[in-house]
């Protein structure tokens, strides 16, 4: 393909667009290495805020709570969301299908405040002590629909005759799901889990509504600290979060890219070998 010289217009658009997206994050990362206590004044390079973060037990506790909620709610949401997606993709037409699929997708567009409030009312009326478990359940509720959407799109491209072939060869339906269907939709299920996990990780609104004593998540902690003024410590923990997410995304895309390249090479070899 011909390499065209990029025009000034294109370069400018690109720079402006990316600045808009990433400048705030870059500033945050830079200031996390600021030696000065004042957030807006550069006082030289330092990693001391990262060190002090390690001794900030409240922050570490909040991180630990967030991680536990994220993993459990993402796992639960993945199981429920996958089941919902299977029903929607496989059951064909049944009574109330439109209602059912509408209800699964509703939390996608429902304002978080309303979701949080209604869950709070539910927990109060059930006389449920609020804390870790209520946040976990709340996160499962709203993350499940995202998982259902992701898994359903994967199921749409799934060749049903694979399941029929398995059953034809003597494999009962439930075993067929675990040996044939699940390995095939695994990328979708994994993507759904990652999505649910990140949604839980950065949720502030719903967690605030459904929390109780002793269960403070990281976003809640950060938010309450910021109200007392932005400290470089906050910048440091946010930088760590950004780093974790970036590494995760890059690793995932590298793996899938390599698999695709390998697959294409194999297919070319197979075609070349057939004669």
């Amino acid at each position, binding site marked *: 393909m011909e390499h065209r010289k990029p025009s000034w217009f294109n370069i400018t658009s690109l720079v402006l667009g990316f600045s808009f997206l990433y400048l705030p994050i870059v500033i945050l990362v830079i200031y996390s290495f600021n030696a000065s206590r004042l957030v807006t004044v550069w006082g030289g390079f330092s990693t001391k805020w990262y060190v002090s973060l390690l001794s900030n037990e409240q922050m570490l506790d909040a991180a630990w709570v967030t991680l536990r909620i994220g993993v459990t709610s993402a796992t639960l949401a993945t199981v429920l969301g996958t089941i919902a997606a299977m029903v929607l993709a496989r059951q064909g037409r049944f009574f109330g299908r439109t209602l059912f699929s509408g209800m699964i997708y509703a939390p996608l567009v429902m304002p978080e405040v309303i979701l949080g409030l209604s869950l709070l009312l539910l927990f109060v009326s059930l006389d449920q002590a609020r804390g870790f478990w209520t946040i976990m359940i709340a996160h499962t509720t709203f993350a499940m629909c995202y998982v259902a959407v992701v898994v359903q799109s994967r199921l749409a491209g799934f*060749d049903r*005759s694979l399941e029929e072939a398995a059953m034809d*060869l*003597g494999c009962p339906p439930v075993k067929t799901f675990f040996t044939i269907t699940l390995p*095939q939709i695994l990328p979708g299920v994994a993507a759904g889990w990652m999505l649910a996990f990140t949604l839980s990780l950065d949720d502030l609104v719903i967690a605030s509504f459904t929390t109780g004593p002793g269960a403070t998540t990281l976003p809640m902690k950060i938010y309450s600290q910021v109200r007392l003024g932005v400290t470089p410590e906050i910048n440091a923990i946010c930088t760590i979060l950004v780093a974790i997410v970036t590494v995760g995304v890059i690793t995932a895309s590298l793996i899938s890219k390599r698999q695709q390249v390998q697959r294409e090479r194999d*297919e070319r*070899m*197979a075609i070349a070998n057939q004669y």
Partner: protein
Amino acid sequence: MAKKPIGPVRRAFAPWEDPSAIPFIEFRNVTKRFGDFVAVDNLSLSIYEREFHALLGGSGCGKTTMMRMLAGFETPTEGQIFLDGQDLAGIPPYRRPVNMMFQSYALFPHMTVEANIAFGLKQDGMPAAEISSRVQEMLRLVKLEQFAKRKPHQLSGGQRQRVALARSLAKRPKVLLLDEPMAALDKKLREETQLELMTLQEDLRMTFLIVTHDQEEAMTVADRISVMDRGHIRQVATPGEIYEMPNSRFVAEFIGDINLFHGKVTQKQSEDAQLYCDLTDSTINIQGAGDVRVGDEVTFAIRPEKVRISLDKPAESNANVIQAEVWDIAYMGDVSIYHIKLAEDEFIRSVVANTTRLVERPITWDDKIWLSWDRDAGVILTN
């Protein structure tokens, strides 16, 4: 009705002619409806052990539905299906002693060739040593020994097809179902595979049921063919009978090329009849006319390769002879198809084998020629 022989045919295997033979697979008044659509309409069919049977028809004729009902993926709305004396109603696909080779092959992408073939055997709880020897046997059978560790996407289309075949044969099913097994192969590979499939079926002494829309494929591989149309079976017979003695216009036109003429029976004496055909404004003599009466309006059908053409009037007096004119010639390499004009916009086709390397044809455009065919060369189709 006793079938008239079509000349001397060597027939080693014909259980359907034996009235005491017990069918191996039996569809008994089977109907399948999808909503308002009737896919299979009150259909009965018997298939015998070790038979290679083909369900042949266009798309939507119900052939695939028949196969899927036998495999257990669809439940008949009415009627029963028996396999080896057992009513299959209520038996789920994973407990039926039949295996299917899918049109898309449906190989498990995350498993190696070996694991694909072993999959069905594992479900039966066969000991590992036995599984591995059976898998080796299957790989040898389809000549893929060196590909055992490959994944399906590392194979060519033809190789995948053979893995699918090996996988469906591994459990030694009572019946092997083949759903358009060669649709994805190119012509040359398809012809080779058809021959391999026939040899395999003879060697394994198994019952094969194939679904296909390709009439040549059905003619090549099958012992008997069921020609299907809109949920009905139009004719069940051997390839030879289907071709030479079609029982209806539909079958005659579906299989191969054929000339059809409208006519009226003017004479009938035992098996011989005379037909008046307005198109040629002549009478046609027919030997073996079957159940027709004087005055019946019928269709006379004759295959193009049975119509001879010559420049001189043929000497034999027994044949039907008509004078006409060459309108067009289609040169196909191995044969030439002559379109011969009988009347305005009415043509008869004659296929002539190109036995010599003549570039100059002895008979060419606008030649006045003689058409002739033997009295027993065509068939009368009522309805």
